[in-house]
């Protein structure tokens, strides 16, 4: 195996592929990436047995065909630290891979390509295409609410609900929930899948903002996404996601509309003096005034007051300020709408003109 490639051409796919590779491994081959040369095409594969990512690069000239695995992180670091515009010559010699560029020369250990695991996909696939930009938006608007290492394993991921004309993403960690609905022309059959957290984050990384297409394919226990340069495969989480429709409050009567940036800054300032462990702030609502209070174990206090549009009942509620901040950062409109019913019920946050996303945050009893 031998090929020549420019640093820039190799770096981006390599970075994405190496992102899938876990840092600490018990199975040595999993810390490697698989390099394959077929004619003018080089493909790079990284996997952690749950998520597999294949990046493809077209070489300027035909290389010598072959396949081998090399340590992914080290190859990436070498590639990254070479000067701009450098040309790399990568060749397999005597079970070692030599990387040459200008006056630099590196020899990397290898493991045979046959040892590299394949994420096997079985069962028939339902395929449909959608815009990368739209899919990325659906993920980006909700992924922050995914749980991390929760014992309820199905919360450590994102629900994709595919219908004939829409795709809905839902993420929750049990305390707050985020959901986003986008229009697509989907498959005939509606389907719900849970993509694991890592899969969601890796998938979002390889999607571009351009209006180019991505093909999604579902099988019984895998999701595949194909773009021009990448093939992404992830196992699915086998579990029952909580019914999001029951979680979204519908009987809120007290509606608050506020300037998003202003509110965001208020939260950011009060958060400084909230309890660092559970970050509680108190919100006091009265007609057209929102007051935010925070205090910490050292008895330091923050108090903010902001003008809003509100004419509901007076309310006092506690919230985890991080949850509110997350929502404020992901919403893009000028104003934000918050619908409340009482101090113990969840709050509904959304864009005032009814955008595609809805956020639910549970209050905290302080």
């Amino acid at each position, binding site marked *: 195996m031998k090929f020549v490639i420019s640093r820039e051409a190799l770096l981006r796919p390599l970075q994405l592929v190496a992102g899938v590779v876990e840092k600490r491994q018990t199975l040595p081959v999993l810390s490697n990436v698989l390099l394959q040369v077929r004619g003018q095409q080089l493909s790079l594969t990284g996997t952690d047995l749950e998520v597999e990512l294949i990046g493809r690069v077209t070489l300027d000239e035909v290389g010598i065909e072959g396949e081998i695995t090399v340590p992914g992180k080290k190859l990436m670091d070498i590639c990254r630290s070479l000067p701009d515009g450098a040309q790399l010559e990568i060749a397999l010699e005597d079970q070692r891979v030599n990387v040459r560029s200008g006056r630099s020369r590196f020899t990397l250990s290898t493991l045979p390509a046959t040892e590299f695991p394949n994420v096997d996909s079985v069962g028939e696939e339902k395929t449909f295409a959608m815009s990368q930009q739209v899919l990325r938006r659906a993920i980006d608007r909700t992924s922050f609410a995914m749980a991390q290492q929760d*014992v*309820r394993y199905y*919360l450590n991921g994102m629900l994709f609900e595919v219908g004939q004309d829409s795709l809905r993403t839902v993420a*929750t960690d*049990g*305390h*707050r*929930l985020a959901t986003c609905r986008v229009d697509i022309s989907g498959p005939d059959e509606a389907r719900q899948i849970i993509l694991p957290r890592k899969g969601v984050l890796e998938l979002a990384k390889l999607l571009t903002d351009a209006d180019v297409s991505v093909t999604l394919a579902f099988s019984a226990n895998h999701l595949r996404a194909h773009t021009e340069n990448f093939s992404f495969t992830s196992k699915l989480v086998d579990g029952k996601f*909580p019914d999001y429709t029951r*979680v979204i409050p519908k009987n809120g009567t007290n509606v608050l509309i506020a300037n998003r940036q202003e509110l965001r800054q208020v939260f950011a300032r009060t958060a400084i003096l909230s*309890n660092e*462990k*559970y970050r*509680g702030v108190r919100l006091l609502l009265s007609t057209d005034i929102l007051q935010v209070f925070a205090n910490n*174990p*050292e008895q330091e206090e923050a108090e903010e007051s902001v003008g809003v549009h509100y004419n509901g009942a007076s309310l006092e509620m*506690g919230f*985890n300020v991080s949850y509110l901040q997350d929502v404020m950062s992901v919403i893009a409109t000028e104003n934000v709408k918050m619908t409340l019913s009482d101090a*113990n019920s*969840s709050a509904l946050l959304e864009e005032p003109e009814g955008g595609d996303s809805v956020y*639910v*945050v*549970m*209050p*905290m*009893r*302080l």
Partner: protein
Amino acid sequence: MSKIHLLSPRLANQIAAGEVVERPANIVKELVENALDAGARRIEVDAEQGGVKLLRVRDDGCGIEQDDLALALSRHATSKITTLDDLEAVMTMGFRGEALASISSVSRLTLTSRFEQAEQAWQVTAEGRDMQTSVAPAAHPQGTTVEVRDLFFNTPARRKFLRTEKTEFGHLEEHLKKLALSRYDVAFTLRHNNRVIHQLRVADRGIEQERRVATLLSPDFIDHAIHVDTEAAGLQLKGWVALPTYSRSQTDMQYFYVNGRAVRDKLVVHAIRQAYRDVLYNGRHPAFVLYLELDPKLVDVNVHPTKHEVRFRDGRLVHDFLFRTLHQVLGNIRPQDQLAPASSSSLTAGVDSASAVGETRGFASGAVGNSEAANGLRLQTQAEPVRGIQAGEFRGQGGLPWQSSEPKPTPAAVAEQMNSYANLIRPLDSDTVPAAMAERPVLAGTAGFASPNDSVTSGNMATAVQTNTPVAFAGVAPAMPAGSADMPPLGFAIAQLHGIYILAENRQGLVLVDMHAAHERITYERLKAAVDRESVASQPLLVPQSMSVSEAEADAAEQYAAEFRALGVELARVGPESLLVRQIPVLLQQAPVTNLITDMLGDLIEHGSSDRILAHRNELLATMACHGSVRANRRLSVAEMNALLRDMEATERSGQCNHGRPTWTQLSMAELDKLFLRGR
């Protein structure tokens, strides 16, 4: 099937013996308990071949009347109770009326006794299938002797289960230890194969009692023990608990007595473990000798034939009392309490009169005077009924036995030998001793125990005024009396060693402090206090978490709903065996809540209370404290180090870090001198 018939008396007794008599040690327990119930002041136990060949228990109690002798060996015969009411409020060790009958059914038993008013003694034996008794005249001083020979001679199956002589005697000794620790007003002698193993004199005074504990357990234990004496809500707890640094790898040094009866009770063990949790090194066990006194009506000892288990009518109260008392005692250990002043033999003069007061207070009562000279083990200088801590146990801090070193040379002798040295040391000990004694902080426990403020106003300890005013549980020990020595207990920092240890100079010598461990504990206690000040914040769950439990657990969840709510947990029962967690404490958001709740339900069912949430919270705070404390290799200025030392003096449990490691140790001048062979 054969016909149904009545068992012969001997067989019936042998079956009963199966429950109680397993090995010679059980016999000793039964017989010594009988002797104690008879009001003996002296008990002698002779054993041969581990007690299998011969076991003789002789007492000077009230004895048994001639007419009763025959009855004494029959089953269900006792003088200890007569009515059910007696059983409910039983004060004697035994009451079942089975021991002698059981023992005599599996051995050759001779009972010799002289009643207090009788002119001569009588001897009784029981033999044969029907346990016919025969009474014969004998010579014996007042009291009773029970001689048990050839144990299990007629029950070979049991005999096979006996271990070696050494093992059996070990068990026997352990049982006698337990009994000897329960009654300080009785003298015990234990002989094995005609060799005296233990000879324990009557120990009325505190110092003698401590000596008995030291003999029976280990001198180290009492050196590292804190005296406890608390009374509240009709419960009284006395005894000694070892410092957390004196822990054991096994539960072998745990003696707990309920109304003088040694018990091994789950509830008690749980409460004590809980009290030690914050300070005990992982996987270690505390050592303690504790006496709980309460109204006999509130405890049921008739649970098990061997009476190892008891049942408290109000288990939760007992649990809380034990936990709170010990938690407070352990929390109030301060460096100054653990530092004894430099030795002073002039003290012993005044002490005897002080301890005389204690004598009248009877068993285990505080008022311990001191006489270091008498036992040479260590010195204590407190003269107050309750003290938080023994004077001399700071040795435990690093296991550096400065006090076990030879007595300090008198200043004069030093002067003769080494003038310069004398000059150096005099201001440190001899000259300042009387003053130091007077000003020494009163070694008080918590205010809740008693005497919040005893002040010793002169060097003469005998004039110490004793006050014993029990007040409710609250508050902590009084601060150091004003005008105390200008040198604080942990002294002043001199330097930092390798960025890890602080070296400080105090009156006794050199103090070494593990900077990270000490700071970690200070941060941790502060965090705990801060969190305690705030109300419990709870997070209702957007997606309630369901968990499957047993039906008993689900019942408990309903029964203890109020307790759960107070902790910020809300549970709803959605089926016979499933619960829904609707709300959790905010601090435990990331914790495995369902496991925690299952554990809590287990605790509640078992002990009626649970502190799992608190424990888990403390774990989180401990981690925060660990990250928020100065790490090794951080250079500290002298001012910073001094501030840390002052914080340690003021902080609860500052003797151990969060994980139970010691935080500081003392190297006394005497020890340092020894290293350099000075003053020899």
